[in-house]
């Protein structure tokens, strides 16, 4: 057994805590990696299983299949009838769900610690024995279409996001929405689901994360008993997409029913490849914090409170993902102001950043939040397990978590400035605008025209 102990106290300079983060790992003979995060504060346990298969692994024409299969995983196996999985977890006092992202698909249950064997038995069973029927598929695909209508088609901002991703990425599969294009959903078959399941649902393509009031050694034994007999399978080679370099600014408009316009500026940005060596992703993460990490951060202070050009503004960056990342800035113009006004204001912020950098005070403020956040996260077992699962699933390991924390602390003001200068370049920018349409379908007064109060 390879065990490793990560003591948050070391990072926090002597703050003593009873909730030390102990993480142990072992890989079963069939390739299933098992990671245990002991936390004895409450008699509960969370099981999460993470498959390294997300929407980015889909091919053209079958978009949405990763997520559809996630729904179908609740439909029963050869020995556990449809609906029975949820009934048994419920009867054990458990909560359960699943989620699909671009990069992975994960399933979880939260229960009293005595119910972990039940959760493992059921989860292991559906790793190999799913019973996919045309009838279940036909019903569930309708549910997924309703989900798409609810969360994308009728949501102006989600629609903007979906169309923006399709514009930003020319080749990389991040251009396809996780939930899938509607016309793909309409043509998917149970055979597509079966093929997806057979291709990716194998122990050697998964990470099992168990957190809670458990002993690692007992969890490993339990995992061996329930998952150990599932045979390893050959994984198909993964295509590694290199998005062609963007050669000039892209602009797009989405019309949808809404009241307020909205503008998003997305710049291509790198992700963390080597946690110990890289510096730019950390600097970008700190930069996002300087812009939008707290109530006194620049965008809220300057655009919303002082200039009052925006009724809301934000910035964001993910430093970890399997594919490429984006650095985004966004804003909603305030009454009487336009998307051009907020774009100019956001560009003003960028120019100031590149020219003057960030102050030591701002830097320390963002770092103070990073440190405090590491303590606060101890209050959520689920989140800690989730962080581990995410890191493993995107190709880093959970050992990167403390490294990232350390490296964020080491970012300098000059690095933040340099990262801003290097990344926030027009040639790799996509500007997406929501052009709000009246519910009646009749045209609106031209943007920026005076509105009666």
């Amino acid at each position, binding site marked *: 057994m390879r065990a490793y102990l990560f003591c948050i106290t070391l990072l926090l300079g002597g703050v003593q*805590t009873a*909730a030390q983060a102990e993480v142990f790992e072992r890989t079963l003979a069939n390739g299933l990696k098992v990671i245990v995060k002991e936390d004895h*504060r*409450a*008699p509960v346990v969370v099981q999460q299983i993470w498959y390294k298969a997300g929407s980015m692994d889909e091919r053209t024409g079958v978009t949405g299949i990763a997520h559809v299969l996630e729904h179908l995983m609740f439909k029963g196996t050869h020995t556990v009838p449809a609906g029975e999985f*949820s009934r048994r977890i*419920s*009867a054990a*006092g*458990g909560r359960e*769900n699943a*989620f*699909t*992202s671009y990069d992975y698909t994960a399933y979880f249950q939260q229960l009293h610690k005595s119910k972990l064997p039940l959760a493992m038995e059921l989860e292991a069973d559906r790793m190999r024995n799913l019973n996919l029927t045309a009838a279940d598929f036909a*019903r569930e695909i*309708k*549910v997924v279409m*309703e*989900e798409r*209508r*609810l*969360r994308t088609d*009728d*949501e102006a*901002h*989600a629609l903007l996001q979906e169309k*923006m991703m399709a514009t930003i990425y020319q080749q990389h599969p991040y251009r396809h929405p996780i*939930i899938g294009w509607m016309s793909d959903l309409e043509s998917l078959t149970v055979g597509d689901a079966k093929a997806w399941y057979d291709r990716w649902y194998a122990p050697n393509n998964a990470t099992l994360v168990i957190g809670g009031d458990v002993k690692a050694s007992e969890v490993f034994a339990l995992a061996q008993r329930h998952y150990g007999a599932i045979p390893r399978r050959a994984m198909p080679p993964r295509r590694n997409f290199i998005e062609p370099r963007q050669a000039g600014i892209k602009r797009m408009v989405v019309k949808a029913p809404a*009241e307020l316009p*909205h503008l*998003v500026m997305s710049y291509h940005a790198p992700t963390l490849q080597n946690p110990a060596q890289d510096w730019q992703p950390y600097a970008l*993460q700190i930069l996002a914090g300087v812009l*939008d*990490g*707290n*109530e*006194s951060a620049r965008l809220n*202070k300057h655009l919303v*409170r002082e200039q009052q050009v925006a009724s*809301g503004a*934000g*910035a964001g960056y*993910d430093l970890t993902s399997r594919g490429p*990342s*984006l650095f*985004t800035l966004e*804003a*909603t113009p*305030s009454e009487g102001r336009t998307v051009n006004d907020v774009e100019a204001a956001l560009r003003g912020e960028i120019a100031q950043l590149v020219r003057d950098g960030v102050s030591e005070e701002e830097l*320390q403020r963002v770092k*103070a939040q*990073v440190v405090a*956040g590491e*303590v*606060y*996260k101890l*209050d959520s077992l689920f*989140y800690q397990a989730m962080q581990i699962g995410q890191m493993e699933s995107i190709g880093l390991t959970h050992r990167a978590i403390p490294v990232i*924390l350390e490296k964020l602390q080491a970012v300098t003001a000059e690095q933040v400035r340099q990262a801003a200068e290097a990344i926030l370049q027009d040639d790799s920018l996509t500007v997406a605008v929501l052009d709000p349409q009246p*519910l009646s379908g009749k045209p609106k007064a031209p943007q920026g025209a005076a509105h009666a109060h």
Partner: protein
Amino acid sequence: MHINPNNPLENSTPTPPPASPLKGREYAAASDFQPPLQGEGWGRDGLNSANGQSGIKTLHKRLFGLLVVWLSLSVTTAFATPNIQHWQSAGGTKVLFVENHDIPMLDVSVSLPAGSSFDAAEKSGVAGLTHHLLDLGAEGLSEDDIARGMADIGAQLGGSFDQDRASVSLRTLSSAAQRDKALDIMARVLQRPLFPEAILVREKTRVIAALKEAETKPESIADKAFHKAVFGMHPYALPVSGDVASVEKITVQDLSGFYRAHYRAGGAVVAIMGDITRPQAEAIAQQLTEKLPSSDAPAALPEVAMHIPASEQRIAHPASQSHILVGAPGMARNDPDYFPLYVGNHILGGGGFVSRLMNEVREKRGLAYSVYSYFMPLKQPGAFQLGLQTKKEQADEALQLVRHTLAEFIAKGPTEKELLAAKQNIIGGFPLRIDSNRKILDYLSIIGFYDLPLTYLDDFTRRVEQVNVAQVRDAFRRHIDPQAMATVIVGAPEEKSGQVK
């Protein structure tokens, strides 16, 4: 107030610097609009925040939908419950405290009976703006001083607001340097807010923009029409953030007057959870409330009229789905039928994947992604609500099915088997309800605010265990008349769209 977006009963995800709101959207198999698996009710959002709109996020809290449920397993295991200490401060404030040193942090919340139901109809929105402006200027502190002061020490100032309750909450590291600074700011925010004129003007503009945006969203349109139909002239019908016309009229005097009348020491409830001692907790409670106004208690809310006429509104909307809400006044937090109704609703539409509504509407027929029912227990009876969204063409089919499922449940009640399964889930899942400081803090706050017994947690499993089929059936029959319900369909099927039938 800046609002903590975390559902207090969900797993909090304190992400260090923020993740992009636009990347990594995830799709869940069950609803994210998860029915009240965890509590008996959940929030309605006056201004629906939609996804990732960084814009107006400060306004979008509303209900914390939790409304606690406590159990301890009587038959099999006895689950340990936190040891709640309780006292009253000199000014009459109720204090609940759980001492716990596992994590070097402190959570504090102060709740006041100052929710939107205390608004006058013509000045709807005053209560919400009063709460919203608390941390935008206080004695000796500009809004930026407050924001920077908290950020510098990694502390999080948050809050929540609903029909009954206005809360301010704080999470901070518990070492003296951070704790003292954070509490000093919080104390001034709560007790010496300034309501600066220029900031009110700015925030009114933002609120109005958000209200106009909400008026385009089917879920917000439905929510507003539904509460109007269910509560009529009662203040529970008022939109929690007001409406465009009423917010335009609000002045600084309205806010300071509302503050003096409703932010009273005698009505406040302080909940404290975390890494401090009892003497420290006593001092903190004192520090946060001793300078609150000592005005007289305001007049009690009018009674909710429990019987409403049957109504059905079909409101046109270009969305591809119809948003359907059905309901009526439900139950108050102190209703003697609380447990039969809670357990019964778990079976009907509160228990997630295994509920009757989920089974009929989603699992068997694929008509919706999310379908649920809940009671919103408030001081007065809050709404009992069933909801779903489905594509327009099948809206009438889905509505009939929901009505039929409800009518049958009320006529016959649950089966013994269903009741057993619900009890197993609620009782067996008890430890998950108190497995974090955040969850415990929220329970302390609810117990204090709604005058629940301090033994509420210890008693809960027994109360659930005692519920029988006849009680559920009788309680539902007495509270819910399926012939006298309000129905709202936004984005109704084309041929029938129009106004009130």
